[in-house]
């Protein structure tokens, strides 16, 4: 029993080493390019697991695309050119910041429009309330009663 536990433990340990050794290999050779690639990949969406960036994703395609970006960078392409390269193949969806186009106007300005609409509605409501309270001045009779109540109150609190 104890022996088999020991073997189990050793196997696990070996597996852990193997796993960590495998993870360490795919680091690119040129740190400058690696840094630039990861910065760019953080702006791009992985199409397989759509809520992850190309930088974060473990998907096969993401690894391939990171490699592709590395190679394009080595060929001296700019970040903008590489983005164009990917957009031409996968569409605007790869960009986490959608470009300004007629079809994306609502996306870009929709929140602003909602804010302006909300402020306008708020303004109108406040205006109307003010008009409602201002529109009903006290009649002479009401004013007399109010004064009487106030002075009564003042007299009682005075003593």
């Amino acid at each position, binding site marked *: 029993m104890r022996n088999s536990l020991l073997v189990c433990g050793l196997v696990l340990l070996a597996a852990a080493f193997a796993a960590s050794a495998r993870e360490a290999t795919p680091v690119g050779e040129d740190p400058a390019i690696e840094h630039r690639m990861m910065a760019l990949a953080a702006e791009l969406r992985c*199409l397989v697991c759509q809520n992850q960036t190309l930088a974060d994703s473990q998907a*096969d*395609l993401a690894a391939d695309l990171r490699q592709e970006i590395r190679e394009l960078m080595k060929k001296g392409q700019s970040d903008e050119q590489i983005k164009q390269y990917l957009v031409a*193949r*996968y*569409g605007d*969806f790869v960009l986490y910041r959608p470009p300004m186009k007629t079809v994306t106007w609502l996306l870009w300005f929709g929140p602003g429009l909602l804010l302006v609409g909300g402020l306008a509605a708020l303004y109108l409501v406040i205006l109307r309330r003010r008009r409602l309270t201002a529109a009903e001045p006290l009649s002479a009779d009401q004013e007399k009663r109010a004064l009487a109540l106030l002075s009564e109150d003042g007299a009682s609190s005075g003593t």
Partner: protein
Amino acid sequence: MRYLRYLIPLAAFLVLTGFLFKGLWIDPQLVPSPLIDKPAPEFRLTVVTDPTKSVSRDDMLGKVWLLNVWASWCITCREEHPLLVDLSKQGVVPIYGLVYKDTRTDALRTLQQMGDPYQASVFDPQGRTGIDYGVYKVPETFVIDKTGTIRYKQIGPITPEALHDTILPLIRKLNA
């Protein structure tokens, strides 16, 4: 005027519900390809069954053809495979395969086991041609016309409905 304060929220609610309702039938996994109506990307790759032969996009100019991206490790490709075998027997359209990120032996074994519906399957072990075609969810199938322009892309397996309602009518139209 009085009704407005009830009608506006109701209208806003209905519009929102409309959008959400439509959203129930949209698969966010399906991203429309920017390659539709663009020239199919160039490739020259060796044939899986015979490494000495190669096929390029330009060999197909002048005919309407299907490019089916598949791999032995892709389970949905296996589900799709009988439909392709059927389609190839009908002889309506030549089907070419793009073996995506696979090994020759595994791809050949799949063809032996499940039948070979392809005029030729070209071999893309690194998936580079796959990237050029914007492949992200194998199987994918492109309908390419006589001028080498991509006219339709099926993302995921070809369903019988997609075949009969979209792909076959499109092929007939392109061949007319």
